[in-house]
């Protein structure tokens, strides 16, 4: 039986920072998989840059989670030496990339969520989270714009691109609800004014998505759901184990190596 990574006596703020950091880390890994595989060279570059922004955010958040936890774990310890069950990211970011339209649907869903969250964290009572948010909000504004432009271009494009973009939206839609599920960690951190109850972000997310989907002549999926949740407590989909293995292989094969 695996210990519940949340229930242990870890400060809620550490868990909160780790969750946001894991979202950014895992999505940056998925974006890196696109490099040399994107439909255009410019997209290789764009997705690498977006992934790099997320990786930078993850480094700040993981370092901070380690400090608050107080057990002496560094950003590298947290990224490379935890097992799958200890990662606290949502399922959306670990889902396989699929085709380009699937990945752009994910980018739109996640960056819209992340931007709404960061805009509130800018006024967090926690100086590190507020500082991180103040930087990241500018970056993620570009990420959301990048995704929205692709969803519009493909959705309102040819018959084939429209069908594939709709399939991409449908493919990622069942993962959306989990983004907005709060629990006692969110309550505790939001109660201190340091964090945000994710449920509060939903109306804004819906409004932006509706506007983009409408302009892109795409249909908002109805009834496409799966039992949401699990990621925030370390329960993941099959894809996650493979992702963690690839992400950690080099580091674990050469413990303590430097260059």
């Amino acid at each position, binding site marked *: 039986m695996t210990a519940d990574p949340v229930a242990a006596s870890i400060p809620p703020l550490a868990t909160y920072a780790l969750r946001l950091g894991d979202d950014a880390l895992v999505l940056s890994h998925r974006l890196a998989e696109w490099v040399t595989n994107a439909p255009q060279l*410019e*997209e290789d*570059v*764009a997705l690498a*840059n*977006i992934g*790099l*922004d*997320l*990786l*930078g*955010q993850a*480094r*700040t958040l993981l370092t901070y989670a380690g400090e608050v936890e107080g057990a002496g774990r560094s950003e590298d310890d947290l990224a490379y030496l935890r097992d799958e069950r200890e990662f606290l990211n949502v399922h959306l970011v670990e889902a396989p990339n699929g085709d380009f339209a699937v990945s752009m649907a994910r980018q739109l869903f996640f960056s819209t969520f992340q*931007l*709404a969250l960061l*805009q*509130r964290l*800018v*006024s967090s009572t926690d*100086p*590190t989270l*507020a*500082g*991180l948010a*103040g*930087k*990241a*909000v*500018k*970056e*993620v*504004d*570009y990420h959301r*714009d*990048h995704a*929205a*432009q692709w969803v*519009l271009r493909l959705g309102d494009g040819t018959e084939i691109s429209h069908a594939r973009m709709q399939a991409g939206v449908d493919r990622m839609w069942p993962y959306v609800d989990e983004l907005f599920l709060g629990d006692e960690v969110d309550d505790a951190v939001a109660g201190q004014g340091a964090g945000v109850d994710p449920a509060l*972000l939903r109306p*804004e997310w819906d*409004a*932006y998505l509706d*506007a*983009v989907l409408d*302009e892109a002549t795409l249909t908002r999926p109805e009834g496409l759901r799966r039992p949401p949740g699990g990621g925030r407590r370390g329960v993941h989909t099959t894809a996650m184990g493979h992702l963690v293995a690839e992400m950690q292989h080099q580091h674990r094969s050469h413990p303590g190596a430097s260059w």
Partner: protein
Amino acid sequence: MVIGSVVAADDVLARAQAAAAAVLDPELPVLTIADLGVLRSVEVTADGTVVVTITPTYSGCPAMDAIRTDLLTAVRASGAERVEVVTVLSPAWTTDWISADGRDALLRFGIAPPGPARDRAAGQGSGPVFVPFSARPVDVPACPRCSSIRSTEISRFGSTACKSQWVCADCREPFDHMKAI
């Protein structure tokens, strides 16, 4: 460079400031970190430690480690015995901090400098939803080679996160533009 023979605290500070300000950005080696706005302050503590404070341009900027190493080397070479480099995230870096000299240097290097940054991301989420198809207002940069303003954006992400790619409709040359953030 010999500034003076007597090493007083003020002298240490002045030399450290000059040395730190002259460190170049490794990605844009025509620009000092002072011109770029990455260098926030240089101070001397009561025990004589020189504390250099920097801020990253982007969260994932890979140049920060090189800048930190270069700063330690440069400030030690200026005569300081103990040097610390501190990284801060707040206030968040903005392209508005790039100096006039820095903008000239970018232009000479073939990179169109950024226009004024808008505080477009700072809302609390209660504002109007953007009409997404009318892509964000983008300041069309003048071509750094021929100064034409007839240029088109190729990609919003260029060779580094801080740049976008453009092509000039007159001289037909592609060029980088540092995005306003």
